[in-house]
């Protein structure tokens, strides 16, 4: 192996110049000859029967190309659910609803115009005769008495009941435990809000019978497979799906949605390309939402503060339909993480998934793991208070001791490698914990409410071993592809099934290739996001690109090297077994002066005049990597806040994060992802939340004026550091860095606010976000009690 030079270096991103100069290539930037423009007619009601749709008047509008309703889409099937659970109730989810709409924003017709304005004007004239029905949007009320029934197949609106862990052992632990704590934890609904709205351009070419779909996708092959095979029934090989530059995803662009499906169907009908781009309000109404759990969490402890039992009962709101991977999020991505970084005597978790008249809920950055981490880390602080122990002491007392290769949890997973003390030690040193507590105590005497909150988290990423996820209900394999194509002149084109929508793969993956082939980065191109060029790949989510996608590339590099050794050995009249490769040269072991440079081997492979007998020409290898396990990043975060006693306003004074994501390819990029993740997690704690009006079922927070996406002034600079515990799972030793910040930060912030108010007798706050109003009310209630 070549000496690592670029892996581990903060190389500036190669993709940046095009973004910095306005030359990015996003879906809505695309212009095609004969382009038409689509507007969707959507339900203004949360729950309503469609009596009739009258499009006659709209069709007479100038500039209208076509209007279609669900009834026109003959032979088209329901959007599929890609993750099944035992006895899961799967209601149909048609691309255009024709019998009823079950949430605000449900699309019922597509209006296609010569211009966007023409389409918009005509869409206004589509008359839908609605029979409005009562609705239920509230997570807690969905399965309760009197709630409206949303789907015939799902009595009481229950989609599934699921459990994990050992109920009997957990019950026994609680019976004998001297200390038992119980809290209700509301993990509110969030909207991912990538700044680029979802968009697509669909084009059908009648002459060849081929489609091209440009779509804001984190996984174009998955989009193609689901849309072709399950919904439209068109041959997959006739459709090319391109996900060009995509402006952020955070999970929301994984899923197959109604709009790209309808546009792909409609382009064949009208034989012209169609462009659709969501307006932000449509994004709020139709991008899959995240979180939305109500949980009763109980922790049993010994007098010494050892965790004897952890019992968790959760209701998860799934929205009106099952989004692509919805059932996995509150189950296998949640219940399996409830062991945290702690030795626990017994764990039991029950989850009930319910339908409501709301936007479907699916993976949003972290997906299940933030909810698990929040429940654990909040309950750890509650337990520390109940045991009258410092939260640091309770954490340390229960940490799983350092291990290098495997720790079997009580909820199915086997952690890869971990050493949970050092990140916390670093955080405490950066914070100067003793000094902080002294300042806090001094401040309290003057009525100053400052607090610190910790979160020592773990998460499961590098998703995932196909056999394992298959046994748990996934309808897909979760491997990744990586093709390395060496050109005759020595340049290298790498095709990865991973997709970058901000992660910087064009840089990090080139760092891997450059190091391992010993060639300059500028001779390497990374291609992604195009089913017409890249081998079938599973895409980017679950912090899997470097670990799973990167390893697939590395496997191909190794195959290239093996073939190269044979070619070089032939040129040097040596035995292939005696060959080695380093720094871009194939050489005879022990005699580095007898060598052939990589470029000469490449040329020889394509001009095989002097060539080993029986060896195929060409130098191109493809690999598919299926990991043997998830990877488990961990770390410690601390947040320091000040609460204004008069207004309840929370100010973040410091935010410290020490993460262990295994080996790091590009520290600058990892830090950047950690920063962004922290911002999203802090925002859940303090500001964000999707709100539905109980009575009307309307999404009240349907724009950036109503939904508090954080702005620069609301946040602070973050202090970051790392420990590095390589994973034994993959040869790069990388775990995954895309979601740690989001997973870790929410409980750190809430724990800090609770700590600030602890002097007033507050040990828990049930619901987020901790807006000034909510905190002020808590302060008033605490004062009233005294």
């Amino acid at each position, binding site marked *: 192996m070549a000496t690592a030079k670029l892996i581990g270096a903060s190389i500036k991103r190669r993709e940046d110049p095009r973004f910095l100069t306005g030359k990015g290539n996003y879906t809505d930037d695309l212009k095609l000859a004969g382009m038409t423009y689509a507007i969707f007619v959507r339900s203004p009601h949360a729950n309503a029967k469609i009596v009739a749709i009258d499009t006659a008047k709209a069709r007479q509008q100038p500039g209208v190309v076509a209007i279609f309703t669900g009834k026109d889409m003959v032979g088209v099937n329901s959007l599929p659910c890609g993750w099944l659970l035992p006895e899961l109730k799967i209601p149909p989810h048609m691309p255009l609803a024709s019998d009823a709409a079950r949430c605000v924003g449900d699309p019922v017709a597509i209006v296609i115009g010569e211009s966007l304005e023409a389409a918009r004007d005509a869409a206004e004239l589509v008359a839908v005769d609605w029979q409005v029905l009562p609705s239920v949007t509230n997570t807690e009320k969905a399965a309760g008495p009197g709630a409206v029934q949303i789907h015939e197949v799902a009595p009481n609106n229950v989609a599934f009941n699921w459990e994990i862990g050992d109920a009997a052992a957990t019950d026994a632990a609680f019976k004998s435990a001297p200390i038992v704590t119980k809290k209700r934890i509301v993990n509110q609904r969030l909207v991912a809000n990538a700044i680029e709205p979802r968009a697509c351009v669909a084009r059908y070419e009648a002459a060849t019978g081929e489609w091209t779909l440009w779509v804001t996708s984190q996984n174009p092959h998955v989009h193609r497979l689901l849309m072709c095979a399950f919904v439209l029934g068109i041959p997959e090989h006739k459709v090319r799906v391109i996900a060009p530059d995509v402006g952020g995803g955070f999970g929301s662009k994984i899923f197959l949605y109604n709009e790209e499906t309808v546009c792909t169907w409609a382009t064949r009908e009208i034989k012209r390309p169609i462009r659709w781009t969501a307006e932000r309000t449509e994004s709020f109404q139709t991008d899959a939402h995240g979180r939305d759990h109500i949980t009763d969490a109980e922790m049993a402890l010994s007098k010494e503060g050892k965790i004897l039992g952890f019992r968790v009962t959760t209701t998860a709101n799934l929205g009106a339909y099952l989004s692509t991977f919805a059932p996995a999020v509150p189950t296998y991505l949640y219940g399996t993480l409830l062991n945290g970084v702690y030795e626990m005597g017994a764990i039991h978790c029950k989850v009930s998934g319910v339908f409501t008249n709301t936007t479907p809920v699916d993976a949003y950055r972290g997906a299940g793991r933030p909810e698990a981490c929040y429940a654990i880390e909040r309950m750890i602080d509650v337990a520390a208070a109940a045991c009258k122990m410092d939260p640091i002491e309770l954490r340390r007392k229960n940490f799983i001791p350092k291990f290098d290769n495997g720790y079997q949890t009580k909820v199915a997973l086997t952690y890869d490698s971990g050493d949970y003390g050092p990140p916390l030690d670093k955080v405490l040193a950066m914070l100067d914990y003793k000094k902080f507590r002294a300042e806090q105590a001094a401040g309290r005497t003057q009525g100053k409410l400052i607090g610190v909150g910790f979160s020592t988290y773990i998460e499961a990423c590098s998703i995932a071993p196909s056999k394992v996820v298959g046994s748990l209900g996934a309808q897909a394999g979760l491997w990744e592809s990586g093709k390395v194509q060496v050109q005759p002149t020595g340049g290298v084109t790498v095709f990865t099934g991973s997709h970058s929508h901000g992660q910087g793969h064009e840089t990090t993956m080139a760092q891997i290739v450059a190091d391992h082939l010993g060639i300059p980065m500028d001779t390497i191109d990374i291609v992604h996001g195009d089913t017409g060029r890249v081998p079938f790949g599973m895409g980017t989510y679950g912090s899997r690109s470097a670990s799973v996608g990167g390893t697939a590339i590395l496997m191909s590099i190794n195959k290239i090297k093996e073939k190269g050794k044979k070619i070089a050995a032939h040129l040097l009249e040596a035995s292939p077994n005696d060959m080695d490769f380093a720094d871009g040269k194939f050489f005879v072991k022990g005699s580095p002066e007898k060598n052939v440079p990589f470029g000469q081997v490449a040329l020889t492979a394509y001009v095989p005049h002097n060539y080993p007998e029986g060896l195929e020409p060409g130098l191109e290898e493809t690999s598919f990597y299926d990991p043997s396990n998830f990877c488990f990043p961990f770390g410690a975060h601390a947040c320091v806040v000040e609460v204004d006693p008069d207004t309840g306003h929370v100010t973040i004074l410091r935010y410290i994060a020490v993460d262990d994501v295994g080996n790091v390819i590009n520290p600058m990029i990892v830090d950047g992802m950690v920063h962004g993740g922290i911002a999203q997690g802090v925002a859940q704690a303090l500001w964000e939340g999707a709100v539905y009006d109980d009575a009307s079922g309307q999404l009240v927070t349907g724009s950036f004026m109503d939904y508090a996406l954080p702005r*620069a002034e609301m946040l602070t600079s973050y202090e970051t550091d790392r420990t590095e515990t390589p994973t034994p799972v993959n040869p790069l030793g990388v775990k995954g860095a895309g979601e740690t910040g989001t997973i870790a930060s929410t409980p750190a912030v809430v724990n800090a606010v609770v700590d600030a108010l602890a002097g007033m007798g507050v040990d828990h706050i049930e619901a987020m976000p901790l807006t000034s109003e909510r905190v002020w009310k808590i302060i008033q209630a605490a004062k009233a009690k005294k």
Partner: protein
Amino acid sequence: MKTTVSMTINGAKQSHEVEPRLLLVHYIRELAGLTGTHVGCDTSQCGACTIHLNGQAVKSCTLLAVQCDGAQIKTIEGMATDGNLHPIQNAFWEKHGLQCGFCTPGMIMSAAQLLERNPKPTEQEIRHGLDGNLCRCTGYHNIVKAIQYAAETMAAR
């Protein structure tokens, strides 16, 4: 009823027949063909569409194209000169002030105005000055660092 508007964008004369309701951002993107200016919302909150109108940073989604007849407009495509990145563009590159790149053009246009008005801003002043621009990737940390770095490099010139 269409009406003709003319404006100069990045030094080039543009003239098009437009509907009176056409927003400036759509004029820039669809008619002038400059797609570096982005649309991230429909309520003038996100700032992805920020451009310079007669030297002032404005959100091009809050103006009608017909209001800008005769205007001088600069977009992200006009920031680099002779193939050299503007110091702010370079600073965003150096300090990793972008990830997905979608908010970046608006951020850079806002940052340019910010530094023009206040060449030596504090971190708090930078954060306040970015109030009209949303980023979902960076948590703003490196955007702030980039603008600080740009201020330093521009002062040194």
